[in-house]
């Protein structure tokens, strides 16, 4: 018979298995970051909290906010949309050429915005189709659509800059209420719509489910592909709408209308706490994320940081902020791609 050594008495209690994650700390991080930035910039230059500057910040936040709604949806399903700037350009030129301008005689009124949204939705649909049906990673399909959008814009642009003439659209979008740009209120409306959609509709809830674990969702009757394509369509429409607002601000239609927005949007969404792997995060996260990025850009200007250095500082701060936010999730075997 074999010899037996009793090494330890069987544990009286079962050892507690570590399960689940600690409560939502990801929501607090971005808010703290925002508050820290506000305090730091106020100390450096008290003018930062002046009414005038707050109005400026909100004005600057409008376009990224609209973009972040579409981008958040896409990132929630675990995808990425890099086509933002291209779709903005195509939307912008479409809008300008359908509105009263110095190149043609068109005046489609509000329908000009509708036309721009349609172009954006079509580009988003192309993106979604390529991703879902042709099984191309959204990183690559949206990179392609970016250039398709830019190409369409350049064709419409055709060597001379179309300049917007006065119209109701322009008057309204560039107006203010209490000194705050109407475009900010529009953006706020889009965000609220985004919140409603993501909390109370199948479309929004399935986005979370698909991003959370697509393999599980596949076992249900949910048509994943259709929802994914729809999300890219919405993202495209958001980008086109941002292009419309951008053109109204510039007063002209140029393909470069969206330059720099990709960085702002993606970093805002990620910084806000929406995971690139999908399933977690949301519109309000992105709202905070956008405010962080916009405040950062604005504050750096007011702090007198050389314009040549500003971009580099923004990049550094974004990396640092995302790194700190994700510090707890590091583990030996976590694979990040």
């Amino acid at each position: 018979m074999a010899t037996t050594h009793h090494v330890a008495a069987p544990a009286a209690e079962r050892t507690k298995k570590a399960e689940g994650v600690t409560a939502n700390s990801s929501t607090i991080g971005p808010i703290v970051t925002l508050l820290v930035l506000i305090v730091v910039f106020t100390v450096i230059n008290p003018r930062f909290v002046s009414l005038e500057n707050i109005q400026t910040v909100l004005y600057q936040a409008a376009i990224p906010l609209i973009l972040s709604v579409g981008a958040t949806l896409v990132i929630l399903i675990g995808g990425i949309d890099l086509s933002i700037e291209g779709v903005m350009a195509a939307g912008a030129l479409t809008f300008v050429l359908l509105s009263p301008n110095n190149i043609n005689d068109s005046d489609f009124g509000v329908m000009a915005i509708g036309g721009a949204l349609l172009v954006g939705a079509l580009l988003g649909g192309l993106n979604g189709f390529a991703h879902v049906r042709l099984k191309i990673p959204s990183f690559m399909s949206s990179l392609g659509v970016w250039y398709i959008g830019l190409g369409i814009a350049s064709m419409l642009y055709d060597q001379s800059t179309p300049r917007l003439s006065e119209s109701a659209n322009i008057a309204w979008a560039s107006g203010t209420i209490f000194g705050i740009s109407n475009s900010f209120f529009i953006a706020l409306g889009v965000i609220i719509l985004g919140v409603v959609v993501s909390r109370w509709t199948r479309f929004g809830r399935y986005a979370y489910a698909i991003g959370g674990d697509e393999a599980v969702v596949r076992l249900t009757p949910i048509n994943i592909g259709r929802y994914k394509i729809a999300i890219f369509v919405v993202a495209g429409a958001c980008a086109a709408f941002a292009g419309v607002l951008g053109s109204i601000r510039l007063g002209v239609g140029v393909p470069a209308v969206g330059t720099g927005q990709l960085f702002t949007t993606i970093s805002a969404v990620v910084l806000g706490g929406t995971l690139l792997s999908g399933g977690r995060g949301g519109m309000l996260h992105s709202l905070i994320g956008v405010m962080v990025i916009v405040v950062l850009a604005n504050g750096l200007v007011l702090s007198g940081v050389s314009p040549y250095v500003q971009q580099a500082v923004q990049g550094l701060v974004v990396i640092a902020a995302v790194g700190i936010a994700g510090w707890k999730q590091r583990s030996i075997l976590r694979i990040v791609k």
Partner: protein
Amino acid sequence: MTEYALQLNDVTKRFGAVTALESVSLSVKPNEVVGIIGENGAGKSTLLKVLAGIYQPDSGEIVIGGKKQKVNGPRHAGKLGIGVVHQEQSLVPSITVTENLNLGFEGNVGRWGLYRWSKLRAETRSFLSRVSSTVDPDARTDSLSFAERQMVEIAKSLKAVAGAPGSPVIVLDEPTSVLERDDIAVLQKEVEALREIGSVIFVSHRLDEVLDFCDRVYVMRGGQVVAERETEGVAEEELYRLMVGRDASGLHYMEDQQLEPQDEAVLQVTGLTSPGAFEGVNLTVHAGEVAAIVGTNASGREEVARAIFGLHGYTAGEIKIKGEVLKPGNPRTAISRGVGYVPAERKVEGIIAGMSIGQNLAMIFSRAIAFGPFQSPRRRRELSNAWIDRLHIRPADPNADIGALSGGNQQKVAFARWMVEPDVRVLILDHPTRGLDPGAQQDIYAHIREACESGVAVLVLGDTLQECIGLAHKVLVMRDGMVTALFDAPRTHKPTPLDLIKEMV
């Protein structure tokens, strides 16, 4: 209404040459809890997949509520009244309990497509209350404990069978394997609640629990039902013996080649603790010795093995390789000190599909093959060919894509990767023969013996108890993260599986 809620008559399922289920017959009465026990590979999971309609039986029939049925898939199974709660949970972590329970079946959610959360929530509560669970329907699923998630799974399966005509049958696959004792008590209450609604099939390899939960138990071994017993007054030992079976050939594990270990302690683990995984683990493996750790899924043995290779952190204790303390949580240092690890998840961690056999073998740029960052293709070819020969790897082509190989051959490559290392001192084998045919198993056993001969210390987490006993010089039993017993297993005095099981559960 017939007497049985579910009957299987002579169900056979083959995969190529392998017979996974051989003429299995069983029956479940309404409001009965029936257990199915068996070791890994006994055919339990195949049986479940047949019930869920994932596999179609090659012959035999499934009779549900007196009617012969063809089950087309999990959803169809639900319509017929069979709900399977799988061991791997199928809930989306990032959404709420309510959403998971209703995912894809929200029905008419409300006006303008807006969710009426109150309605969904109420429905969720009603299903949860049937299994007397108090989980908050609004809780995000990843905030729940494993046991709570399991209750949600059970409630979900109830929803799936809600429309079925007859008495539903809920199948629980290894429901207790990761549960704590308190949770098991809760689960037992749930099973009793389920008994009121329909029948339960309780699949497990933990005999004591099966006896606790069930009215009747079927014992499976090698794809067959070898016994059926009422749990009332059954002799536990008899069931153990039926479940484990007898080893046909005494020398299957090449016990005759089991040499005396050398004196040098190569691997010394003292007081190793990682809260929630393992606690105060001591373990010494000498040169030329095979130590096996046995334990159930939640025993913590995998985590200990991974900790030694640096894949799992620990808060207290230390690991010494040849007397030198190993830095925790760093596979690279572990490798440089001569620790090798063959993982259980072969396809995920063991091989890189798409790369050739030779490249997989030469993954660790050791001095056997490489000069700094460069590999010598000639040396790699020679080594690959040598090991392909020694381990009978087929196809015998170092350039063949490893992804196209059979599981056994892939495993041989994963194993050989460490054997090409001239400096390997400790070899950790996590289920080294999982899914291999007997011939391939023999090859692996032979090479474990050979490694011992050259003075390597081997730590094995075997697939079966016999494998552990047969291979090892000593067997550690782990339970709930602690080492509960240590058996010496010299060539001539092997402990029996029964001895081990007593300490495991």
